[in-house]
């Protein structure tokens, strides 16, 4: 099997000890950048942005709800791509990244569902309704839980990872349903806030839009910091018998 079309740096990074060191060096910077972005974004969203003319201050949940919802979808895409690489090329790092994406994606999906509920109660008068957007996001949450469950159901963790990666790939059909649900069906949930084709057409004032985008940046940075850390831990436990891990943990200073 020829892999010559894969760039050299990918080969280098695909090797667990190299990835472990690289991720360890990058992670603190990503977390620091995420915190800085979150402080700026939340100051803009909670202090500088004016109240909404219809929703008052309740709309301020948007600055965490919408970025978390975007992450719930983006992490699924990342998990599916890593899962595909794991299935086709059996790259160990891809297996680890796919499996470690699931709890992180589930975390953001849970945040989306709970903050949405806390926003729905004062605006719609109900914590929950079986509308297309809410239901498909709940399905997304169960897909993440399914991937986690299937992974842990196997004695052989690498086989479990490949089985769960297959489930993750099948679940991709749910992603367009979540995204377009507010257009395809009459939903109680409001339409998409940001028009990515033309930001100026977005149904949100600029004073509210920029904190939202900065928060989206913050959650993306957090995602990269978290997945690198999770993958490091995953590699450590999967490669426990290898020489590089023994040298790493065997050394008295961590």
């Amino acid at each position, binding site marked *: 099997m020829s892999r010559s079309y894969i760039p050299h740096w990918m080969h280098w990074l695909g090797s667990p000890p190299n990835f472990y060191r690289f991720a360890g060096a990058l992670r603190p910077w990503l977390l620091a950048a995420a915190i800085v972005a979150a402080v700026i974004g939340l100051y803009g969203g909670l202090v500088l942005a004016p109240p909404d003319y219809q929703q008052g201050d309740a709309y*301020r949940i948007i600055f965490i709800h919408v970025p978390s919802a975007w992450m719930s979808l983006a992490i699924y895409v990342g998990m599916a791509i890593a899962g595909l690489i794991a299935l086709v090329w059996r790259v160990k790092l891809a297996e680890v990244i796919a499996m470690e994406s699931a709890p992180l994606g589930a975390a953001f999906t849970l*945040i989306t569902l709970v903050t949405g509920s806390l926003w729905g109660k004062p605006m719609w008068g109900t914590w929950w309704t079986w509308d297309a957007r809410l239901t498909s996001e709940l399905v997304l949450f169960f897909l993440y839980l399914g991937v986690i469950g299937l992974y842990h159901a196997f004695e052989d963790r690498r086989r479990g990872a490949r089985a769960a990666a297959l489930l993750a790939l099948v679940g991709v059909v749910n992603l367009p349903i979540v995204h377009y649900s507010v257009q395809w069906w009459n939903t109680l949930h409001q339409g998409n806030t940001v028009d990515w084709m033309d930001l100026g057409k977005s149904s949100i004032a600029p004073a509210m839009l920029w904190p939202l985008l900065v928060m989206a940046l913050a959650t993306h940075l957090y995602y990269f910091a978290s997945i690198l*850390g999770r993958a490091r831990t995953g590699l450590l436990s999967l490669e426990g018998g290898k020489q590089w891990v023994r040298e790493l943990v065997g050394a008295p200073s961590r």
Partner: protein
Amino acid sequence: MTHWLAMGGYAKYVWPAYAVFFSVLAWDWLAPALKRRRVTRALRGRIAREQSRKPRTTSAEASA
């Protein structure tokens, strides 16, 4: 400040939402760190056991 904290009467929805956001992400950050410590400790134990087994001449060593 109290005016800001009141969130125009929506404080009981806005602040719990932010609390959920930060606590779930704090869990996400801490859970792998704790797992890493667990894995590292288990590996150290395994290595120590293997090394104590190797020098068979000193059989006095307890098989911990």
